[in-house]
C-alpha cells in the first residue's frame, strides 16, 4: 500500500509521459484499495463523509467548487480561497500542519497534496481511523480527475461532473483559439533574485503548453529548478510571465536582471498573472490558462 504513495515521488525521475504516470498511479491506487482487507482507508459510500480536512490550498478550492464547502472543518493558513474558506478552522500551514488539531476536529477524511506530508501523517492518521486521500495533479487532466474523485468522496458527484464538464469546455475553447497560432517562446520567472523557473514537472508547464506557449525551460528536469542567468539571457524569450499577486503579494513583480535586455523586456511583453491561478492545481487553473492565452495571443480572443 505504501508503495503507491511513493509513485508520485519517484515517477518524475523516470522519463515517462505524464499521462501514463497518472494512469499507472490511479491503477495502482485502485488495485491497492481493492487489495486491502480490513484497512481503514477504503472509502465506502459517499454520504459517509461529513467532516473533511484539507491540507493544501488547491484541495480547499476543489472542495468548495464541488459544493462541499459546508463539510470542510479544517484548512491550512494558506487556504484563502474562496473567501468562505477563511471562516474554517486553521490547522497550521502546508509544511507543518498540526496533527493534534486535525484529530481534534474529528474528520473522517483528510485530503493531502504533497508527498512530504504523506510520510509524516499517513500512518498516524490511519491509527486514528481517519481516512487519507492523496492527490497531487501534475497537469490539467489530473486536476479534472481530482475534482471528480473528491466530488465522489464528498457526496457531490453530480456537481463535480458538471464542474469538470464546464472547465473542460473552457480549456478546449482556449486550445482551439490558439490552435494554428505560432507558439510564443516564453520564460516563466518564479523568482528573480535568485532566478527560479518552471521545469518539466511543474504543473504550470502543462498549462503553458495548452495556452499556445513554448516554455523555454520545458525540458529542464525537476519542477522548480534554479536557473542559470546566462542560459536565461541566451534563451532570448519573446515574452516573460511573472506569477505574482494573489497570496504572494507584490513579490516577483520585476523582471530579473539577466532578462532586462531580452526581446520580451524590450518590447514590453512582460505579463503579470495571479500566482494562485498558476500554482494551485484546482478549478482556477482554467482562469490561469485563459489569462496566459489571452495575454500571449490577444488576437485569438477578439
Amino acid at each position, binding site marked *: 500500500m505504501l508503495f503507491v504513495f511513493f509513485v508520485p515521488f519517484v515517477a518524475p525521475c523516470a522519463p515517462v509521459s505524464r499521462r501514463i504516470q497518472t494512469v499507472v498511479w490511479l491503477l495502482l491506487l485502485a488495485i491497492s484499495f481493492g487489495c486491502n482487507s480490513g484497512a481503514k482507508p477504503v472509502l465506502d459510500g459517499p454520504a459517509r463523509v461529513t467532516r473533511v480536512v484539507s491540507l493544501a490550498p488547491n484541495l480547499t478550492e476543489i472542495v468548495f467548487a464541488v459544493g462541499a464547502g459546508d463539510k470542510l472543518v479544517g484548512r491550512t493558513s494558506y487556504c484563502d480561497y474562496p473567501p468562505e474558506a477563511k471562516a474554517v478552522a486553521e490547522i497550521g500551514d502546508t509544511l507543518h500542519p498540526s496533527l493534534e488539531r486535525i484529530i481534534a476536529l474529528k474528520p473522517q477524511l483528510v485530503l493531502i497534496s504533497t508527498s512530504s506530508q504523506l510520510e509524516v501523517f499517513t500512518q498516524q492518521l490511519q491509527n486514528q481511523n481517519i481516512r487519507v486521500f492523496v492527490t497531487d495533479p501534475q497537469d490539467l487532466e489530473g486536476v479534472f480527475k481530482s475534482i471528480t474523485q473528491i466530488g465522489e468522496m464528498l457526496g457531490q458527484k453530480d456537481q463535480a461532473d458538471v464542474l469538470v464538464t464546464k472547465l473542460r469546455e473552457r480549456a478546449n475553447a482556449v486550445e482551439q483559439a490558439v490552435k494554428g497560432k505560432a507558439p510564443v517562446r516564453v520564460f516563466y520567472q518564479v523568482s528573480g533574485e535568485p532566478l527560479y523557473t518552471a521545469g518539466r514537472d511543474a504543473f504550470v508547464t502543462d498549462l503553458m503548453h495548452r495556452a499556445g506557449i513554448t516554455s523555454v525551460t520545458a525540458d529542464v528536469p525537476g519542477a522548480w529548478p534554479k536557473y542559470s*542567468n546566462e542560459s536565461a539571457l541566451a534563451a532570448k524569450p519573446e515574452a516573460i510571465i511573472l506569477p505574482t499577486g494573489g497570496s504572494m503579494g507584490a513579490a516577483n513583480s520585476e523582471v530579473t536582471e539577466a532578462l532586462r535586455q531580452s526581446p520580451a523586456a524590450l518590447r514590453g511583453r512582460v505579463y503579470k498573472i495571479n500566482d494562485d491561478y498558476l500554482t494551485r492545481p484546482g478549478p482556477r487553473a482554467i482562469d490561469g490558462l485563459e489569462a496566459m492565452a489571452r495575454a500571449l495571443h490577444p488576437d485569438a480572443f477578439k
Partner: protein
Amino acid sequence: MNRVTLRKTLISCALLGGALLLAIVSMSLLGSERLPARASLCALASLGTRACGLTSDQFDILFQIRLPRILLAAAVGGSLATAGAGYQALLRNPLAEPYLLGISNGAAVGTMIALVFFGAVEWIRPLLAFTGALAATFAVYRLARGRAGATPERLILAGVIVTTFLSSAIVFVTTMMDATRIRSFTFWLLGDLSGTSKALLPVAITITILGALALTLHARSLNLLMLGERDAFDLGVEVGRVRVVVFLVASLLVGSSVAASGSVGYVGLVVPHLARLSLGSDNRISIPAAALGGALFVIVADTVARTIIAPRELPVGAITALIGAPLFIYLLKRV
C-alpha cells in the same frame, strides 16, 4: 622550514596572484552557455573594449553575468579565508572559522532581516549583516569568558551554542515565509553567487582587499598571539586592541560575504589551514596567501556549481563542503 622573509612572501603572493588571474580568465570561459574561446579571450584581453566577434548576447553573458560573478566569488572566498585565518590566530585554534563560531549565522540573520523589512534598499544588507556578525561575535565572547579568560576551548563551545541558536532563529524565520520564498532562502543559505548586484560588487571587493590588508598589517602581533595571549602581552603586543581590530575586521569581511552570497562554508577552515601547512604559520605570509587561495578556491567551486547540472545550478556552499570536508579530514590526519 626556513623563516619567512619579505622575499619569500612576495614570491608566494606573486605566484598565487598569478594563479588567481589565470583562474579568473579560464573560469570565465566556462558556463552553462558555450562561448567561443578565442573570441572570449580576445575580448577579455581588451578589457571589454572590443567585442572580437562575440555576438552582443555572448558579450553580455561574458561581461555582465559571468565576470561579475567570478569577481564576486573571488571577493567572497578571499574575505572568508582571511577572516578564518584571523580567527584561528587570535583564538589560537586551528578549528576557528566564521561558520563554527556562529558569525556567519549572525550575518545571515542580519541579512534576512534586511531582506524582509528593507527589501528594496540594497546597501542595508551588508550593513545589517555586519551588525549581525558583530553581535554574534560579542555574544560568543561574553559566553566564553570564564575565570581563566576566554580560552580557545570555551570560545569554540560558545561558538557552537551561538551557531545552533541562530540556526534555529533562521529556521523560525523561514517557517514564516511562503513556499517560494523558502525555497530560494534555503538555496541562498547554502551559498548562492548568482545574485550579483552591480552596486555592491565593488564594495565587496574593496572590503576584501582592505580587510586582508588590515589583518596582514597586524600579522606580527598575531604571530605572537598565536602562541599565547599572556606571552604576547609580555612581549609588547597590545592584546586588547588587536583583538578588537581582528573581531571588527573579520565581522566586516564575513558580513560582506554573507550579505552578498549567503553562507559559503569550509572556506574559512580549509584554506588558511592549507596555507599554513604549505607556507608556515607566520601570518605575514599565511594571511595574504589565505586571501588569494580563498579567492581561487571559491572561483573554482562556483564554476562547478554553475556548470555541473547546467542549465540548473547548485548552491556553491554544497560544492565547497563536498571538497572541503574530505580535504579537511585528510589535513587532520596529516597533522
